[in-house]
């Protein structure tokens, strides 16, 4: 950098015995002041942006419909609406799932999301397979992997039967 003498160079040398010069003091005060401003701004902004991490909304039991909607031995699509979603969530408040009913009240509720990268799997009743439209994942009727890249079987929701209706416990986006 430039070697020209800085104005007030004399000033800098006026050290109090064992102390710091005026210029050194100004430098430190300015840098510290900038730091304080940054911290004052960062706390609310970063906290606000990290907010979703501290969201403790409990998972809800959500209604999927009367048991009669789900014939034994079949797999059907069902939907639920999450009441805790934001008012402007629109259609994203809805979630679709695949409900497989064995005998009696033996239910398995599969997440729509392929375990590979989350695309929505389709149930082919004739083939008794779930097919993923994205990267070629295929699952058997019980959710186990039949082919393609998925690393594990389909994710499931917890289920229960209340007053003759099937309910699922909401959950976050299932990820590997």
């Amino acid at each position, binding site marked *: 950098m430039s070697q020209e003498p800085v104005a007030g160079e004399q000033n800098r040398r006026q050290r109090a015995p064992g102390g710091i010069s005026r210029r050194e003091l100004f430098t430190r005060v300015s840098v510290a002041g900038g730091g304080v401003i940054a911290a004052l701004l960062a706390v609310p902004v970063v906290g606000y942006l990290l907010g979703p991490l501290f969201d403790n909304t409990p998972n809800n039991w959500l209604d999927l419909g009367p048991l009669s909607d789900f014939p034994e031995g079949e797999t059907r699509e069902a939907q639920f609406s999450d009441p805790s979603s934001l008012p402007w969530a629109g*259609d994203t408040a809805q979630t679709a799932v695949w409900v497989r009913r064995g005998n009696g009240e033996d239910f398995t509720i599969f997440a729509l999301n392929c375990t590979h990268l989350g695309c929505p799997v389709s149930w082919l009743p004739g083939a008794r397979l779930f097919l993923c439209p994205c990267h070629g994942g295929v699952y058997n009727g019980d959710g186990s992997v039949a082919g393609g890249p998925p690393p594990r079987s389909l994710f499931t929701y917890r289920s229960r039967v209340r007053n003759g209706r099937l309910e699922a416990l909401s959950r976050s986006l299932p990820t590997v």
Partner: protein
Amino acid sequence: MPVVRHPVPRSVNWWYVTGSATLMAFILQVVTGVALATNYVPAPSAAYDSLNFITNHAEFGNVLRGMHFFGASAMVILVLIHMTQVFLTGSYKYPRELNWLSGVLLLALTLAMAFTGQLLRWDQNAFWSTVVGAEQIARTPILGPALTELVLAGKTVGGATLTRFFAIHVFLIPAIIFGLIGVHLYLAVHHGVSEWPEAGEPVRKATYRERYHRLLRQGVPFFPDAAWKDVVVMIVVVAAIIVLAIAIGAPSLGKPADPTIVQAYPRPDWYFVWYFAVLALSPPAIENYIILGFPLLVFVALALIPILWPTGERSLVRRPWAPAVVTIPVLLVVVLSVEGFKAPWSPALTTLLSEPLPQPVVTNLQPAGLKGAQIFQFRGCRACHGIQGSGGNKGPSLTTVGDRLTAAQLTTRIAAGGGGMPAYGGVISPAEMQVLVEFLQGLRSPSHEPPVTPLAP
């Protein structure tokens, strides 16, 4: 504005316009983006309707959306062309290493803009692309779940997700891009535009600046002596984008984003189709390393170029490997994109659900064969197997399967599966199997003898 009259070497030629062309595309994106933002509503309950309004009712809305779309494509292409030009002319070398590094960051941000922009369309593609993006982030070790929640702004894709992407797309990334373009342009003027490379004049740190300043003494002012070429190309860029926007228009809006519509076939915009293919074709065992490591590897490799090779020859005559370094990745991306558009690994669900079997296949079938054809359709075989070009490509084509396999072989293959095919033994009844095999046996090339069943030993 004395800065626009800064001297440039006389050797500056038409190859030097790529940076200005990219800048033009960026300015066009800013202008059209600001305009679009005056009508776009970034909430899931209204985004799609507001886009519909922009496209079909707002004055010039369709053209503006089209310009923003083709502008995005132009931006991606021009950034890559600019980088290629800088690489081939060795202009990333001393003293311009920081120009290259800021450029690499700008490339990453351009791709981030392309991805977040596609999500704002908030149709089915956008919704599921968000999910696919989140699932990739979730693979990050330890931090995965927290990062996913941060990106989605919640536990699932919901009301807060779209506003977050909107803020990132229109405020955060553009602000960083503006800053970096400032640095990029300042450095370009500060170090001066590189002279056209000459074989036998390698860059040496000790002598380069002096040689360059000698060149500049015989140089010409950037404006207007060199700038007119940039202006010509900028006009071409803007005109091409407007013509495409008018002739082709904005990409049609798909179905509105609705997680309950299961029949979705998500595909990324063209610039990410090659990566879509990478995700489908990666061996599962090393997939995590590819998802997380590959983008990192690409950008680290790009950043290392000027650090590892800051000096030496710039001319292509002395760097014959340089075109190969460019050509090989380009070819790879082209091949992967072609595969991505065909997506042979995907079951053909739309064909299965909407197209009947081709007429020539079903005419002249005996009753049993006809029943078999129905089973073939009902059991979803066509999702993976094509006949006469209709159906999926995930499994082998069955157009002439009767030539290849005997009835016994067909039965075994269907019942036991294998080689990627699920076992259908528990799904198909013996009676169904019989008619299905009869149907498949009938699929032959016109002049082929039936295969001879080998005698049992």
